[in-house]
């Protein structure tokens, strides 16, 4: 259930400028509203796109979030590769890596 709430936070963040403003001005309050696990909250606090990928955030939601947080394309892809090497396979959703995350246009 927390993955659902984590994705909902990112979904609303991606499309709602008021939520973006709340993210920038009172992040802890926003995180509290969505009742995230500490692991999820810390991944958000630290802009850890790779960890969010491993936690199972839908790749399309995460791609928009990464762009908003200023990740350049190669850095975004590399963050997922690095997290895969560090944490292992994606834990939920349909965006699991294949072939050990090899390849990719970086």
């Amino acid at each position: 259930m927390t993955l659902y709430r984590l994705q909902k936070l990112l979904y609303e963040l991606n499309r709602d400028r008021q939520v973006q403003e709340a993210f920038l001005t009172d992040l802890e309050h926003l995180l509290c509203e969505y009742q995230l696990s500490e692991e999820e909250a810390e991944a958000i606090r630290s802009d850890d796109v790779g960890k969010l990928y491993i936690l199972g955030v839908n790749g399309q939601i995460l791609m928009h979030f990464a762009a908003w947080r200023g990740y350049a394309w190669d850095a975004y892809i590399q963050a997922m590769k690095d997290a895969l090497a560090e944490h292992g396979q994606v834990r939920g959703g349909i965006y699991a890596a294949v072939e050990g995350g090899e390849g990719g246009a970086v």
Partner: protein
Amino acid sequence: MSLVFAGIMSHGPGMTARAERADPAVREPFYAALERLREELERSKPDALIVIAAEHFANFFMNNMPAYAIGMADEYEGPIEDPEWLRIERRSIPGAADLSRRIVGKVMETVDVTYAEEWKFDHGIMVPLNFLTPRFDLPVIPANINCQGPPLTPLSRAYEFGRAIRAACDAAPERIALMGTGGISHWPATPNSGKINVEWDREFLRRWSANDRAALTCYSDAETLRDAGQGGFEIRTLTAVAGACEGSMGEVWFCEPIPIFATSGFAAVMDLNAEAEARAA
């Protein structure tokens, strides 16, 4: 008047966001095929363009996910993404609420479609519009098939959705163009982004061009995920266009892998004239 144009094309955000990184030997003929699509679309003199897309959580989420949705507004906005990232300026796009309402009403006779009077376009619509209607001045009716949040609608139903849209277009006096956008095989937004199953893409487009309903709708989701990645679920949008053009054959103008776009660049059209001539005969 019904359909005056029907085609399909890829919509990867890299097509605008990372254009300069694609191999020019492939990129330029791909863009030329898109330019040809634009010219053909304009030649058909449409009053409105229905875009069947697979949105990426711009409007719909798992709290209330419609299998099928059609926009019903006079104005939309996009892109939802950072405009500097997508390299498409955020803007208002004209809609056609009255025509939408009639189409939705007709589609509802066979498909329980959701309607939406608010809709934010993401790259799935904005990238195609950027190439097809670069002035963003043609009224657009967005349609969506959920390809992101399983359970997903069966392919056979996506084909039927297309047939329902066609019936609705047949009942309208306006000249309507139809465009399906999505990827074929791809593993976007993963560490494998850029992986493409070229043979699978060509076989899918062969089936699409033949408008082989049975062959288009026989892929299981497990097979698609295995062979074409989670991005392959977007074939629903392309299959819907085939359904809208049942009885027509298609022609593939371009299909080549462009890894930095995370998908094959492709462009294809249905030959509606042949179908009309067959009907008349």
